[in-house]
């Protein structure tokens, strides 16, 4: 708690000091939840500045009004304006001038120059006509803004998390939306000024439906020092507020099976079990309401909507066919797959229930002192099936115990205060809040609590008939006649070759019987505070200085375990067919804890004692501090230079129970701090030049460095005492299989029997904490943006941006001793001097274990420089056309040509989807690196996005809205992967990344048609239909990259011809003359576009 107080006090001191600076300009706005406007008021007749003109901004979105006086140059600045449509009123020379239709957007600074006609009659109110420019003149940010008009009228999905991909350079990846070549785990999500990003993995945590949101600003680059901790985008969400009138809506959406086209099947070879998931229904019914509690002083806004999704996963069991009775499975000449016929099917219903809520109070003590309290969240209860690493549903398992009960979601509290002083020239902003994300998975039935056994080889599904037939299925049709079963059930008796497990009626690979497997219960909290002070100063132009500090105190409390306390893998029995002698080996994995009373020898030379635990708990914490100062220097009215520098620090703490204990695996005392990244200095500089001098165009450039905030998965896994033991049973001391553990599926008390087997080889993993290289640098991106935007005709702008991003420094865990021990470092950096320091420590210690430890670490550090330098280069040219968003029309079109190349895709592997930020397997061993350079899994050269709508006013008959969303994008490059001897499947890049093939260009057209009936001046009832994927394009999204499941080292720089000669290496590292066997699914379609889906909806707004 002391750290919290210290941060608040420090922030207060900074604020106080900066507030004391005198100034003569109004302050800049809080750029997280509001926008601003500036301009010059001039006399239309004389061209002179309208000195002392009074400029008043009013809007339904604004409590009260904002009033400023134009200075001696006629300039005015109004800040802290909530997003919405404004009217500017100018009082000058006893004449009132009014200009409406001024659109204020979050984080944008609008230039509106006002020309007042002083020749008009006194007392008259004159409307200033003409279009208001819409080009943001205040920053170099690139990205997009999604308004409520957009989400109401353009066919979109239901939440901001599903809509933000509309920005140029955005695309979906496995865990969310990727921006500018970075993985989605590198984004930062800010809602109501509060960082709501998941503390554990950097992914989206808080999500809200569009109806609760006023505006979403997606900043994909070019931002100044006030923003940080993101290598991807900053997604800034502002929820709706109340107003002086009661407004709200009741809404509902419905998707049913009848509105959804059938998904085309994805054929797979080698498994008799397939599945198809169809959405039965998706519906929500919600309401949101805002209004005054005290007019002009206190507003409220509340919203609630439950969203229910009911799916059915149909599990198909089919057998191979041998109609010509030649003992070989028939092949379909059209598809190249074996012909199969249905044996049984079974429906497994799943459901996902999310309860979105929001509540907000907005108060204004006066024009200069405003506050806000907000609460929002998205708790979710799911009944779902486990997933494979590639995100597909895993149905190759016991269907009776598959379902998981998952409670997950997030909720947040935030408070915000804004005060202006010195006639509005100084502004103080403070945001504080609390975010909690959680994800607790448990088996839905008692049977799922058993230890799972995975049979990691191909065998007949009939071996699991007891499981399969215990439900509603009947898989007797999978019984091979030569398998000792009922011949009458097998119409293809010759289709059985004991030397070829694929010549079975119903082969299954990796079947998992009983037990849910790995489960985690986690809670991820963050307490954060942001303090900022803004001061305008006049010196060689206009300056807007802004300084701030923010502090985040995060935690990740994890409880991980295996159902039944263990996970078993049966690698392969000597007799792989049923009925053959069983002398298989099992690998058991269990979590351990160091326990003086334990019975398992572990630690250094086995000197410590461990005991098995069912759940490994690690409560970890993290402290991130940042401070920044930036200046928006308006050198000329049409030339602004933005410069700033941001300082960040991140300290990741060791799990509390480990702190100040002695690590049994090293003999070292474990410190409180796991890693500490100091002095992360992130400079930013940019310019904006308006050649029109009217706010209608800008040329801009920006260069900046952006540091990553390491997600806390590292704290849990590297500094959480993760200790596990792998026992190989069923082998002798030489590693040869024996018959000492001859159990198989169906054996009574299988798990207990296997766990009682005499262990052969035992491998301990983890324990204590992971060593961190001294002088560890933060992971950062450098970005250069050059761009231009021009309002070619009123309300229509065209623009072009060039974006160049690099990733010079990466943090990853590594091993230079073949995986025997790991440490965290910056790959390819030179640690020779740090190694020399370790050598000195080794010389000076008398403890032989420590001496050996230091020497080992020194050797490891010296080898870091030999790693391939990390690289992730993103180059993009964006062409953008935008129309001013209004309630009656909108157009936003972008084309992006981009290339994303390198050997480090980001915080997760785009190939294996391993999400362990900064401790993925990507740099673990030097021999994992070859062939990793190339177009990444996020490389899509061409991307076209068009969104728009138009409202046809039918007058008394109502309004008709037609909206469209078009997406077209290049496919992703496909890889050619094999297994690595230690790391397993898909970790060996047999050919250079993305070298052989790219999935085809895909398109999707979504439409929205709505009819609205105006029931009164403020009340409208709308009914609408959205059709997603109108053309029902179900084209290929990706192909199976697994060339072989055998162990093979990369063919460095090779091609398809070389691959034909690639050889198998055994798990033990012995190369053979045998050419690797091609996976029959390699290069075959792996994922399709979602089929046509219709959505009906209504919206009653008032």
């Amino acid at each position, binding site marked *: 708690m002391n750290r919290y107080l210290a941060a608040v006090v420090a922030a207060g001191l900074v604020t106080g000091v900066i507030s004391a600076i005198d100034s003569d300009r109004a302050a800049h706005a809080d750029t997280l939840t509001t926008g601003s406007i500036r301009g010059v008021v001039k006399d239309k007749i004389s061209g002179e500045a309208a000195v002392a003109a009074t400029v008043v901004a009013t809007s339904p979105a604004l409590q009260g009004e904002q009033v400023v006086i134009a200075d001696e140059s006629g300039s005015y600045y109004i800040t802290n304006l909530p997003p919405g449509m404004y009217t500017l009123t100018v009082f000058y020379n006893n004449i009132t001038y009014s200009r409406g239709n001024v659109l204020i957007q979050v984080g944008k600074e609008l230039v509106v120059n006002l020309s007042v006609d002083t020749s008009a009659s006194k007392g008259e109110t004159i409307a200033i006509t003409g279009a208001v420019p819409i080009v943001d003149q205040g920053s170099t940010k690139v990205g997009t803004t999604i308004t409520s008009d957009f989400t109401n009228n353009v066919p979109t999905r239901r939440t901001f998390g599903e809509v933000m991909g509309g920005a140029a350079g955005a695309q979906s990846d496995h865990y969310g939306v990727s921006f500018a070549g970075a993985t989605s785990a590198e984004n930062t999500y800010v809602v109501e000024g509060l960082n709501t990003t998941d503390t554990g993995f950097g992914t989206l945590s808080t999500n809200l439906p569009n109806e609760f949101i006023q505006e979403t600003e997606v900043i994909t680059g070019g931002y100044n020092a006030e923003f940080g901790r993101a290598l991807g985008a900053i997604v800034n969400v502002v929820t709706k507020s109340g107003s002086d009138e009661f407004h709200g809506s009741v809404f509902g959406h419905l998707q049913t099976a009848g509105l959804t086209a059938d998904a085309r099947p994805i054929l797979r070879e080698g498994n008799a079990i397939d599945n198809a998931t169809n959405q039965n229904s998706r519906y929500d019914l919600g309401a949101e309401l805002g209004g005054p509690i005290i007019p002009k002083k206190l507003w409220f806004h509340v919203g609630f909507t439950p969203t229910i999704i009911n799916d059915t996963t149909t599990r198909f069991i089919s057998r191979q066919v041998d109609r010509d009775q030649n003992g070989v499975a028939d092949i379909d000449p059209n598809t190249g797959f074996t012909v199969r016929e249905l044996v049984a099917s079974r429906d497994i219903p799943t459901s996902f229930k999310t309860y979105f809520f929001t509540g907000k109070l907005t108060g204004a003590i006066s024009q200069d002192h405003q506050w806000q309290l907000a609460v929002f969240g998205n708790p979710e209860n799911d009944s779902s099936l486990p997933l494979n690493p590639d995100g597909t549903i895993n149905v190759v398992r016991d269907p009776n115990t598959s379902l998981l009960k998952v409670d997950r979601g997030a909720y947040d509290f935030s408070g915000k205060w804004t005060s202006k002083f010195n006639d509005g020239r100084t502004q103080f902003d403070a945001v504080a809040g609390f975010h909690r994300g959680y994800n607790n998975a448990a088996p839905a039935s008692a049977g799922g609590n058993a230890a799972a056994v995975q049979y990691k080889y191909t065998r007949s599904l009939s071996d699991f008939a007891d499981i399969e037939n215990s439900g509603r299925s009947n898989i007797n049709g999978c019984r091979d006649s030569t398998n000792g079963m009922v011949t009458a059930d097998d119409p293809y008796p010759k289709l059985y070759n004991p030397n070829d497990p694929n010549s079975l009626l119903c082969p299954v690979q990796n079947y998992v019987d009983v037990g849910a497997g790995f489960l985690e219960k986690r809670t991820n909290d963050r307490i954060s505070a942001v303090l900022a002070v803004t001061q305008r100063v006049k010196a060689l132009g206009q300056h807007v200085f802004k300084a701030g500090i923010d502090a985040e105190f995060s935690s990740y409390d994890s409880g991980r375990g295996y159902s039944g306390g263990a996970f078993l893998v049966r690698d392969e029995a000597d007799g792989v067919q049923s009925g053959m002698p069983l002398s298989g080996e099992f690998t058991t994995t269990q979590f351990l804890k160091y326990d003086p009373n334990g019975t398992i020898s572990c630690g250094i030379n086995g000197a410590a004692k461990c005991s098995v635990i069912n759940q490994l708990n690690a409560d970890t914490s993290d402290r991130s501090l940042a401070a920044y100062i930036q200046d928006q220097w308006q050198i000329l009215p049409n030339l602004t230079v933005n410069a700033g520098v941001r300082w960040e620090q991140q300290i990741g703490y060791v799990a509390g129970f480990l702190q100040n204990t002695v690590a049994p695996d090293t003999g070292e005392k474990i410190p409180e701090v796991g890693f500490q990244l100091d002095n992360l200095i992130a400079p930013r500089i940019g310019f904006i030049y308006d050649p029109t001098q009217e706010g209608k165009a800008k*040329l801009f450039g920006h260069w900046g460095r952006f540091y990553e905030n390491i997600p806390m998965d590292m704290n849990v896994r590297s500094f959480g005492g993760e200790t596990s033991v792998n026992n190989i049973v069923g082998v002798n001391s030489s590693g040869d299989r024996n018959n000492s553990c001859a159990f198989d599926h169906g054996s009574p008390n299988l798990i207990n029997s296997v766990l009682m087997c005499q262990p052969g080889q035992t491998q301990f993993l983890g324990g204590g904490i992971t060593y961190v290289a001294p002088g560890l640098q933060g992971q950062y991106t450098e970005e250069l943006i050059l761009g231009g935007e021009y309002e070619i005709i009123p309300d229509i702008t065209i623009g*072009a941006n*060039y974006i160049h991003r690099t990733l010079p420094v990466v943090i990853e865990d590594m091993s230079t*001793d073949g995986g025997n021990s790991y440490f965290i470092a910056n790959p390819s950096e030179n640690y020779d001097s740090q190694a020399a320091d370790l050598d000195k420590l080794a010389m000076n210690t008398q403890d032989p274990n420590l001496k050996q430890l230091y020497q080992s670490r020194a050797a490891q550090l010296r080898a870091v420089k030999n790693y391939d*330098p990390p690289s992730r280069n993103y*180059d993009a040219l964006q062409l953008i056309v935008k129309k001013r968003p209004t309630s009656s029309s909108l157009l936003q079109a972008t084309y992006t040509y981009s290339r994303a190349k390198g050997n480090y895709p980001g915080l997760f592997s785009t190939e294996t989807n391993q999400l362990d930020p900064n401790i993925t397997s990507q740099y673990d061993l030097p*021999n994992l690196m070859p062939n990793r350079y190339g177009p990444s899994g996020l490389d899509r050269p061409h991307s076209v996005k068009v969104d728009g709508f138009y409202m046809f006013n039918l007058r008394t008959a109502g309004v008709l809205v037609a909206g469209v969303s078009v997406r077209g994008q290049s496919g992703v490059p496909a890889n050619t992967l094999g297994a690595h001897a230690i790391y397993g499947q898909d970790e060996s890049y047999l050919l250079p990344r993305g070298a052989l093939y790219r999935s085809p260009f895909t398109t999707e057209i979504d439409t929205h048609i709505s009819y609205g009936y105006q029931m009164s001046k403020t009340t409208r009832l709308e009914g609408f239909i959205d059709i997603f994927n109108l053309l029902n394009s179900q084209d290929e999204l990706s192909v199976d990259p697994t060339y072989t499941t055998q162990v093979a*080292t990369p063919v460095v*720089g090779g091609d398809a011809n070389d691959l034909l000669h690639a050889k198998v290496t055994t798990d033990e590292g012995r190369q053979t003359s045998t*050419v690797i066997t091609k996976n029959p699914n390699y290069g075959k379609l792996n994922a399709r576009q979602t089929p046509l889906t219709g959505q009906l909806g209504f919206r009653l707004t008032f």
Partner: protein
Amino acid sequence: MLDYRFTIAAAGAFMGTWLVGCGDPDLPTDLRTNGPPNVTAVMVMSDLETAIDPDSEKVGALDRYLEDATFCRLDDDKRPRLIGLQDGRTTEVCPDDLKLKAVDDGVAPGAPPDWFVRIVFDRLLDPSIEDLDPVLDPNGMPNGQFVGTLKRTQPVTLTCNDVNILYDGYYVPNGNKESWPPGPALFIRPLVATDAPTGASCTVSIKDNVHSKTGESVPAAQRSYMFTVAPMSFRFSDPAPDDTNDGSITLTTTIPIDLFFTAEVRAGTTITTDPGTPDETTITLSRDLDPAQVNLTSGPNLPSGKADPAVCAGTAGMAVPASKIRVYLLGADPTTSALVLQLDAGGDPAGPTAQMTQLWEPSTTYLLTFADGAAVPARQGGDPAALPGASDFSLCFHTLPLPTN
């Protein structure tokens, strides 16, 4: 208006120039992509412990061959150096200092039982240097798998003591300097490893048909490499003498002493033991190790059942007659099992009473040494392996009483 439009156009052109981008980097783990294929290392299988070592600590890790470099290309950072192995250990193929030659430059020993040569290149070769043969199932039908072979392309000449050695092998495009084993490489293995005598001097020479995919041949100066076949030697016994050699090593009466060599020993005659009993078996006697060269002294254990230290010290006990000592091969096949001789004092080695059910007298202390000059020749020829003299090898052990039941 024109001014700023022109400016925007110029900016766009500038951006376009940036987009042209740079070429791909040359990474440390990359192979070379142009120039002739250089030989970065030549490695010889030199693991004398392969898969036959009864030491369990070593065996679990060894289903592979360790290799020593007989050549490392100087000043070439593409040559393999420290490489992580699959079992968490590392092996240094070439010195980290690029100025240094291979530790066993030109003389790396191929292990006699099953040696091979690996020639590592810095770029991919034309894969047509290798043929792919289908693998047949037990019915003689292709099972869909292929193996690589150099039988027909013969990309090298292999000689030992100036005699051509027939070989096969394969081309492996996999690997780089960081992988185990390193690659890409030509893997050369004699068809009959015993064609070359132990201690032979061998040469592997690359032919013209080895070239890159763009046709560049291996430079003439990089085509010929020398190595040796390791001389045959005695490795160890099981059980091995301990430091005290006080006879505390215990054997049952049914366990022989194994003597391990680095090359196959020669087989003598075969005999049948325990004839007419359920334990009947056939053993192959050693052709060369004369029991007379085995000094075996025995005496009763102490009344406590422990070994008699006087026997271990050589001051007591009776010499076991050579006629009672039997030396035979472990197993009957001339494979790696022929690297092991077994020795016991179980009685008539050749007569009708030969048996394997009681190899030692019970409750007896034995002292084993070898006579000076005792040696065992290799089946493949070459200098014989000298057995250690009494000053270097002395094994004292005692046997347990016979089971009471």
